């Protein structure tokens, strides 16, 4: 399986993401600059964290108009797995690939620490490797991760099991219903504030994030079996 790590001016978790795929997961991966106009050769699209365009105006607001985003939309519509982490999640929200928006953290502080996440749905291409309601440890690092959506959207997210992760116990940023990660309607686009790419080896303090990437690959292999 071949992954693309999209690099915007100001991305800073692109190297971690690349490392997670190449060294921890053992799959093919390439950096793809934001001006790229074709993603056809990639099977999975990863939008890393950081501060694209300096977070000017709003996090993700400017990045979402990059050339590559039209291709990300195309990949999402084609059913390819698209994962946006932190700033990547914010870009997916701004692009309208996921519903809702981010506000400043409730405490107004940038938070950077490990948090407990509860797996709310393990029937997705991103979470099939987890147990249902399992608690995993993955770090967050953000100033604007306070998720918001209107009541109607929230009801839809719940009804369709599109909330994959919630913060376990204490709510670190004020997110609506402790939401940490959601998918689109089709289930192939995941946005999450915590950084699974920083939790792929015990040496880093946790390897709980690796299962997200392993789930993506397992699902992809199962749906791309060569039937000769």
């Amino acid at each position, binding site marked *: 399986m071949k992954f693309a790590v999209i690099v915007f001016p100001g991305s800073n978790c692109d190297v971690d993401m690349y490392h997670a795929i190449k060294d921890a997961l053992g799959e093919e991966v390439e950096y793809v600059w934001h001006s790229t106009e074709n993603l056809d050769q990639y099977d999975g699209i990863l939008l890393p964290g950081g501060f694209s365009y300096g977070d000017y105006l709003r996090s993700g607001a400017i990045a979402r108009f990059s050339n590559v985003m039209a291709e990300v939309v195309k990949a999402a519509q084609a059913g390819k797995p698209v994962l946006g982490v932190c700033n990547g999640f914010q870009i997916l929200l701004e692009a309208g690939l996921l*519903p809702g928006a981010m506000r400043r953290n409730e405490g107004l502080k940038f938070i950077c620490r490990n948090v407990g996440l509860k797996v709310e749905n393990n029937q997705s291409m991103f979470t099939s490797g987890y147990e249902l309601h399992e608690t995993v440890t993955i770090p967050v690092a953000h100033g604007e991760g306070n998720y918001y959506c209107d009541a109607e959207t929230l009801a839809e997210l719940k009804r369709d099991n599109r909330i994959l992760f919630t913060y376990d116990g204490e709510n670190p940023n004020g997110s609506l219903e402790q939401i940490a990660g959601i998918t689109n309607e089709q289930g192939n686009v995941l946005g999450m504030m915590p950084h699974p790419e920083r939790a792929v080896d015990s040496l880093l303090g946790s390897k709980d994030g690796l299962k997200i990437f392993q789930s993506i690959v397992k699902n992809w292999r199962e749906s791309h079996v060569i039937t000769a």
Partner: protein
Amino acid sequence: MHKVKVYITLRESVLDPQGAAVQQSLHSLTYNEVSDVRVGKYIELTIEDTDRDLDQLVKEMCEKLLANTVIESYRYDVEEVITR
């Protein structure tokens, strides 16, 4: 030429964590009369004369980029700039 002043704030229904912190700070400075604070953005656009409808243009810019209407609302004033 026109100068357009765009004001963007979080929607009424959305809790404003910055506004809440500023309000608390004002209260601690004994300005207890302050019952609500909303922190927003102010953007000034200078727009050259164009055949396109100015209102239409500004609304488009606000909804596409300048404001995120999921959580923010916007309003704007237009001033004509007289150039010699």
